[in-house]
């Protein structure tokens, strides 16, 4: 009797739990599928692009297959020249050859003109030539060089590490070894280094400016603390573009800051403060400062005042008490704020684009540049993998430090 009641209760509870679960899933499903379509799948597809290489395969399907089967040691024979020659002629007639030419150019300097010129010549050809090899060699002796064919085999796909290597200024040489690119073709290690250094500089500046202000806020009476918080949050709510505009106005040669510097006699000439590195660092620090202050204030508020009193009553000099007792206790907030600022700085696009010069652009700029201006989607995707990877790893560390605290990221940049 009792047992059957318990059973029925368990069954009813189970049924209620199940129907709640069904309702929950039905409510979650729309956003889940919407984000899958508009966020997860596109990003996964971008990651895929960084290691796939299908441009040559699409334009020269037979040649790409033949080149993939080549052992990279023997001389390419007439059959290979014939397959490539036919595909080149067909693509020149279909006017799709430029895509393949561009792809070869990534792997072989001068590859674009080599393909375009040869394609043009083959298009004018009547019927099948006696020897495709002789015809193509006559057009450009580069077809007889092994490095041309190595570059072709590196571009033939379907998978490639070419873009990821390029993101680190590396490439595969004729013997398939990974070697550094020549300096005149190197760019991205410097960009990576710049991105990391600028993010670190912004983090340190935010810490130096934010820590004392956080201390003031954490120890102020509630009313004053609230007012201070509104002042700190106000910039967060102001448009990013507006803040860039404000800094341009303030820091330009005829701006207030330069006016003050000249009036005070510190300089006689205007100092260049904008459209260069200092300008970007100032503007980025301004944007990121609230993200440093908020977690530090939260940590400082949780430190009992009695700890400092105890240290003082035990005879510690205030500076010693601060250094040995207070500062270590603020470390979780400092670490969380610093990581947050550093992670967000890594992905900056708008601020450097508006207040920086050509040599102040960070990783995000080159991701966008390779997407739109130079249409090197594979490289854009590879650089995106780097940025996303760095963000993910650091964010994991952040979530460990900050606990299950709400993520504050993403707003801005």
């Amino acid at each position: 009797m009792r047992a059957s009641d318990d059973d029925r209760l368990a069954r009813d509870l189970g049924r209620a739990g199940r129907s709640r679960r069904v309702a929950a899933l039905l409510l979650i499903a729309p956003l889940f599928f919407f984000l899958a379509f508009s966020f997860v799948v596109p990003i996964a597809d971008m990651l895929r692009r960084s290691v796939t290489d299908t441009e040559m395969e699409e334009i020269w399907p037979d040649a790409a297959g033949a080149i993939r089967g080549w052992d990279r040691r023997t001389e390419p024979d007439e059959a290979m020249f014939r397959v490539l020659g036919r595909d080149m002629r067909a693509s020149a007639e279909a006017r799709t050859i430029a895509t393949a030419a561009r792809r070869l150019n990534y792997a072989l300097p001068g590859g674009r003109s080599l393909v375009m010129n040869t394609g043009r010549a083959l298009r004018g050809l009547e019927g099948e030539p006696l020897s495709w090899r002789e015809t193509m060699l006559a057009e450009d002796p580069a077809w007889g060089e092994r490095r041309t064919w190595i570059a072709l085999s590196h571009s033939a796909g379907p998978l490639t590490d070419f873009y990821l290597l390029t993101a680190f200024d590396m490439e595969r040489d004729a013997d398939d070894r990974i070697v550094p690119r020549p300096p005149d073709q190197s760019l991205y290690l410097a960009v990576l280094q710049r991105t990391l250094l600028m993010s670190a500089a912004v983090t340190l500046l935010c810490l130096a400016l934010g820590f004392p202000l956080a201390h003031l806020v954490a120890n102020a009476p509630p009313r004053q603390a609230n007012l201070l918080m509104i002042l700190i949050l106000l910039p967060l709510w102001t448009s990013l573009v507006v803040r860039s505009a404000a800094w341009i106005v303030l820091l330009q040669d005829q701006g207030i800051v330069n006016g003050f510097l000249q009036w005070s006699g510190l300089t006689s000439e205007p100092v260049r403060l904008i459209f260069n590195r200092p300008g970007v660092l100032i503007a980025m620090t301004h944007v990121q400062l609230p993200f440093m202050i908020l977690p530090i204030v939260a940590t400082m508020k949780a430190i009992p005042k009695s700890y400092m009193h105890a240290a003082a009553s035990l005879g510690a000099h205030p500076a010693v008490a601060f250094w040995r007792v207070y500062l270590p206790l603020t470390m979780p907030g400092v670490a969380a704020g610093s990581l947050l600022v550093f992670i967000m700085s890594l992905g900056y696009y708008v601020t450097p684009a508006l207040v920086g010069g050509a040599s102040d652009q960070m990783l995000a700029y080159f991701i966008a540049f390779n997407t739109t201006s130079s249409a090197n989607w594979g490289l854009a995707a590879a650089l995106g993998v780097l940025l996303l990877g760095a963000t993910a790893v650091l964010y994991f560390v952040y979530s460990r430090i900050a606990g299950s605290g709400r993520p504050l990221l993403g707003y801005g940049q």
Partner: protein
Amino acid sequence: MTSSARTLTERWASLALAIFSAGVLVFLVAPILAILPLSVNDSAFLTYPLRGFSTRWYEAVFASDKWRLAVQNSFLIGLPATLVATVLGTMAAIGLSLADFRGKGIVTAMMLSPLVVPIVIVAVALYFFFAPLGLTQSYTGLIIAHAALGSPFVVVTVGAALASFDRNLARAAAGLGAPPLVVFQRIMLPLLRPGVISGALFAFALSLDEVVTVLLLGAPHQRTIPREMFSGLRDSLNPSIAVVATLLTVLAVFLLLVIEWLRVRNERLRRREGRVSG
């Protein structure tokens, strides 16, 4: 510790702290305030000292087709994006609070991840993904992008409102025979409303400020307000920038005040609710 017991060093230290902090506050707020007066300055240059009061730059902005189109685009993209983000985000937040199920942690992380991923990654990924679908250079594409970026704000704010929602109210209504939809409409929605509105305002503010996806995905005739400012700042600095900056700042302060008001009101409601049930 009384002030008489404080050492001279401590007093100097706290004075130095106050002065330094005041400097940092000036650094935070002054740039935003500095651009505002230039919008009514009777000069073609964005420089101080002010030359006299004039509203001609406001007239110029209001009369300009370029800015009218930008405002129109901002709302044409921002309002539908906010609507999608708010409806889907509210539903998902309620669903997440309703029951536990396997993989809930991962689903929650996925729904909050647009807050974490750098915006340029989202923009580039959508550029690749939308191109073959014909969604680049379309309003639909931009609305989808902004809705995705705004939805986590709604999930977070509605989730926070739900965390303090007294489930017994919904149970009581259901026990009295109200169908689920009526329970939702009459009991849950009024109590969740501040959270929903805050989330919607966050999502709209994000769309109103977002420039990277518009740069990559938008057509030239789809320039929004920040996108037009972005071009203005790169080409030539003229006072219409100060006018638009002022209007945007006023709007931002307004949104901040509304959200702050909703938060305070929500807390008060909750306290009253606590008194009744306790």
